């Protein structure tokens, strides 16, 4: 097994709901600029693992370190301040705001202080950056429309673009391809690769679309029943007999 430099270090995280072990001793490490994929059948604990890392739920045991700092149980707000971003399994955009405002809202709280923002320009100096992101995600034609009026696929792109607006050091993407049509999936792949190059952040991606994850992630982890079943390069994991039996099929 090759040793990868650590950036995010998840150590033996467990989350139990009564007798049900949603996450059962998962360890994971992500290096700087690395893209790691997490696959596994529904109910295997992938999202619970994400939520444990991201402070949405408190793990029963184990700890999470980010850049050497213990971030176990920190609130999503504290994590966002440390440069950790995320997307959710379901759409999470600000439906009554325009696409451009969604993107500005995603990054404005990192500019100055709460009091200072009261006296700041309406776009908090982020208008240009938001326009760049709109361009990158091919959303220019809908930039002035309210996010809630757009199609699911377009909202998904906004959702992902929002996570990258503050240029986070680590982004956890929960099923970015879910409900997205095949042509958008390719577009999404290209955008993520481009962002990985330009922003240099690390990504952890949960996904069921195997083509997408195999193409995007140099390192993949397969979870089944709360445990890590296999880990390694995508081709290796895909060929693993246990993974084939438990998740991918023949």
């Amino acid at each position: 097994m090759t040793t990868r430099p650590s950036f995010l270090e998840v150590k033996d995280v467990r989350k139990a709901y009564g007798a049900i072990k949603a996450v059962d001793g998962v360890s994971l490490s992500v290096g700087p600029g690395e893209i790691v994929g997490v696959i596994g059948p529904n109910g295997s604990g992938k999202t619970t693992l994400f939520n444990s890392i991201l402070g949405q739920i408190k793990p029963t045991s184990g700890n999470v370190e980010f850049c050497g700092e213990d971030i176990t149980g920190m609130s999503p707000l504290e994590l966002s301040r440390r440069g950790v971003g995320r997307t959710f399994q379901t759409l999470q955009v600000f439906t009554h705001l325009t696409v451009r405002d969604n993107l500005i809202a995603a990054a404005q709280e990192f500019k100055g202080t709460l009091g200072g923002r009261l006296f700041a320009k309406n776009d908090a100096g982020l208008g240009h950056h938001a326009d760049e992101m709109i361009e990158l995600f091919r959303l220019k034609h809908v930039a002035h429309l309210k996010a809630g009026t757009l199609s699911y696929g377009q909202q998904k792109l906004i959702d992902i673009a929002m996570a990258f607006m503050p240029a986070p050091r680590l982004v956890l993407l929960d099923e970015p391809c879910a409900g997205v049509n095949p042509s958008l999936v390719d577009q999404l792949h290209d955008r993520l690769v481009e962002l990985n190059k330009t922003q240099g952040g690390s990504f952890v991606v949960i996904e069921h679309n195997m083509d997408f994850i195999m193409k995007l992630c140099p390192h993949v982890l397969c979870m089944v029943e709360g445990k890590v079943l296999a880990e390694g390069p995508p081709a290796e994991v895909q060929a693993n007999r246990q993974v084939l039996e438990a998740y991918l099929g023949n």
Partner: protein
Amino acid sequence: MTTNLQKLAMLAAVAAFAVLPVFLKSYGVYLCTLFCVYLMATFGLNLTVGYAGQMSLGQAAFLGIGAYIAAIGLKFGLPFLIVLPMAAVACFAVGLALGFPALRVQHHYLAFATLGFNILVYLLMRNEEKVTGGTFGISNIPRPSILGISFDGTLPFFWFTLFFTLVVIGVLWWLLSSPWGRAFAALRDNPIRAESLGVNITAYTLLAFAIGAACAGVAGTFFATLVQFIEPAPFHFSWSLMMLLAVIVGGSGRFLGPVLGTVIIVLLPEWLRFMQNWYLAVFGFAVVALMIWLPGGLLSIPERFFAKEGAK
């Protein structure tokens, strides 16, 4: 964005409203002033409910706190320009405290928490006779006099109130045009996502309550000096419901929504008085009809019209 034409139209409307009372009898001037007073409170409530998405049924309590602070302060001989910020700051502080339940509960649970607060404040006003005068209230509240200029007359007092109403509206416009406005909207639309994007939902929730309450506190000061006699009845929770109605009927989360909403709660009942015993029934029916056909409020009419035109 507001176009120049819209700005001009708004200026013309404000100018027309400023001149209107010159042609009215004293009761008409009183109603125009009362309209301004409730505008301040409903604009504040629109920030709390419409922009930040925090349900509040306690706005009348803040109106009352502001009114009693003004009444007691002015009777004590304090100048109006001291009493006014005192009421605003006191309501801001109490509003901040009332915001804490909103960090734990939402929607109808929060509605009942704020309703309970209004009932509590109402009972204090009614029972703490030594301070509030109880049901006998506080009378002979002086009208403001600033730098020797008296605003005792109905018309000068109307203009004085209108000026401060415009100041309150201007401050809220400035505040909501800043990044704070977008943060409030993010809090309303999706607090979980907002927090993951660095929005301090604790601070913004508390601020939404506190700023909304401070506006009602300012309104209360003008209410006390308008009627010159206060007792607990106008601060009953039924008036919180009326102010919430104004926000929703006008168009919750639309900046000028409270203007139309306040016309409905303050002026419409007066215009319907010619119906004598039927006027409250007609008022109630009008509100029900508005809620059914215009759930987005009166200011959603142009949007609906253009959506229909676009669909053709």
